[in-house]
């Protein structure tokens, strides 16, 4: 395949979803909309009758909702950090992935950021955080870092999109409706591909790639401190922040593999997203799983050696008690088996790595639940006993709605802009006919 035919193929593959959906697209979009709507109804019910309709109570005040916050935000900053690192190290196989990673990061952040509000029960009281918040409270730190992160993420996604918006503006022309034409014109900011523009854009993307790493790492770190500054059993730990960051990147990369597999098939991107992409990410997942196991063992060995007070009984609850089956299911099904699946050459293929990634994502959801809920269920008062938490249909429906919101948002994103960065493929093949150059000659703003 020549450079020009390859780029032409890339452009067509990247633009195809922008131009038309097809009945499958609409069917899946409708199904996801129904799931999200059911979640919306459940939330309306919760708003009407209060948090009494959930399994939450005075003891276990953080259940599925806060687990979801950590889980979805984890996928988001994991994807953002992975994309930033790929950009900064300029790995050649990243070009098909960075747009997807950045889109996943934004979609998961939007889904995850809703959960603190949902968990409030009385959402209008969220305003009190801004009005009466004290800087000494980790909840206020959380608001600060999540706000910074969302803005950074939008810029991080938007900057590499500018040349592609210009391409849509100039090349798609009459095939688009008026609203979309006007939107592309505005979002392209007048991009014409001049060397000066490219230089400043490259610098801007580099600055944002550097900045997004500490800004994104601040989010899981502050979330971890939200737990570890308390003296709750299971939470009173000094390694929670790096543990959360690592868990985030682990689940973020696994989520990327799943979405990559779906998009590859649905948008016919087999020639762009190859098995090599999956293998490289698979190796990364093995390394991340090993590191996560190391952190987990380090955490439990230090606690298990002492077995002091409630922390000891908490550990017993996880290792041999009522929650042992969930914990060992996570260890075996969410970490060890996926590692083995990717490590064995026979299963180290697209299907095997995707299945392993699904197991990792489900496992990490379970792990977040095991971090949040048992710590609260364990009594710290001598007169009280362990109390079980069971989510109700309301929490399950809202959780499923949030999970459905990520592919739903991605489907919308990829109707609005190319799923693959045309601009970056063009930069990687300077000898071919760059689409933006064509755009510059044939069109204006």
């Amino acid at each position, binding site marked *: 395949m020549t450079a020009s035919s390859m780029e032409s193929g890339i452009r067509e593959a990247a633009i195809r979803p922008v131009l038309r959906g097809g009945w499958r697209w609409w069917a899946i979009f409708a199904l996801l909309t129904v799931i999200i709507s059911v979640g919306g109804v459940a939330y309306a019910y919760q708003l009407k009758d209060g948090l009494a309709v959930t399994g939450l109570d005075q003891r276990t005040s953080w259940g599925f909702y806060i687990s979801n916050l950590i889980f979805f935000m984890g996928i988001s900053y994991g994807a953002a950090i992975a994309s930033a690192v790929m950009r900064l190290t300029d790995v050649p196989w990243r070009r098909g992935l960075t747009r997807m990673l950045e889109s996943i990061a934004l979609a998961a952040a939007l889904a995850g950021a809703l959960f603190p509000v949902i968990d409030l029960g009385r959402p209008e009281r969220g305003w009190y955080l801004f009005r009466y918040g004290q800087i000494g409270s980790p909840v206020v730190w959380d608001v600060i870092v999540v706000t910074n992160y969302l803005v950074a993420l939008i810029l991080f996604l938007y900057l590499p999109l500018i040349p592609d918006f210009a391409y849509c503006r100039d090349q798609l022309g009459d095939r688009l409706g008026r609203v979309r034409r006007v939107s592309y014109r505005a979002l392209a900011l007048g991009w*014409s591909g001049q060397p000066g523009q490219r230089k400043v854009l490259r610098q801007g993307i580099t600055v*944002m790639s550097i900045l997004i790493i500490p800004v994104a790492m601040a989010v899981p770190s502050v979330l971890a401190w939200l737990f570890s500054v308390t003296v709750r059993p299971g939470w009173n730990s000094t390694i929670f922040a790096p543990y959360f960051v690592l868990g985030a990147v682990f689940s973020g990369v696994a989520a990327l593999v799943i979405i990559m597999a779906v998009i590859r098939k649905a948008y016919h991107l087999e020639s762009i997203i190859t098995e090599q992409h999956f293998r490289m990410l698979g190796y990364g997942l093995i390394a991340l799983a090993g590191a996560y196991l190391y952190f987990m063992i380090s955490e439990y060995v230090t606690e298990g050696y002492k077995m002091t007070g409630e922390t000891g009984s908490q550990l017993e609850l996880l290792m041999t008690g009522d929650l042992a089956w969930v914990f060992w299911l996570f260890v075996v099904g969410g970490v060890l088996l996926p590692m083995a699946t990717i490590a064995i050459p026979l299963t180290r293929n697209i299907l095997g790595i995707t299945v392993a990634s699904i197991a990792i994502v489900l496992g990490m959801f379970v792990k977040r639940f095991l971090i949040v809920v048992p710590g609260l269920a364990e009594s710290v008062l001598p007169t009280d006993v362990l109390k079980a938490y069971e989510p109700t249909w309301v929490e399950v429906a809202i959780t499923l709605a949030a999970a459905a919101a990520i592919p739903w948002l991605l489907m919308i994103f990829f109707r609005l802009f190319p799923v693959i960065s045309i601009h970056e493929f063009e930069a990687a093949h300077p000898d071919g006919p760059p689409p*933006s150059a064509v755009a510059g000659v044939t069109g204006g703003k």
Partner: protein
Amino acid sequence: MTTRGMTSALAIVAIVSTMFFAAGTARAQQEPTARATAIKITQPADQVPAKPASVSAQLTDASGKALGGFPLKLYVLTEPFGARLMKVAEATTEADGVATFSYKPTWVGDIKVTVIFAGTKDFAASQSNSQFKAVGPVTLHRNADFGLESIRQWAPTVVGLLVAAIWSTFIVVVVRLVFAIRSDDAAATPNAPRAKG
């Protein structure tokens, strides 16, 4: 070794031993008999953990005469790693024989204390035991004691500066890009071939 050699070695050992014994006897003969002493402890009835408790002890001789200017040590019986006495304070007796110690209990329950006088050449060593209760809320860690209180004063400024720096970077990146695109676009002539972009 020959018989002669063995005899010489034994003789040397005997001479050295005799010298040490003689020196020890002479020293014992020089020391007068030390007078007996007694310690009486006064402690609080109940005490809140982490608040300084005032424990005092009076050192007297056998006749009840107060002994001033002598060092006393306060020990607490701890049990986490096996029962042992832990020295927690040291003070010198005043003219009335009373030494006052400041000690912060670190747990709730019985606090068993021991005051020890190590003795001098004139006064014999003595010790006394007592106990009191630590009750109430456990507030073992107070930020002020570790200097963390001062962090509250400058932390908001540091956080504010950090957030301002991040937002400034966002704004600089966007404004710079918008200006670069606008100026480059305006400079380009309409019919000139455009660069790859």
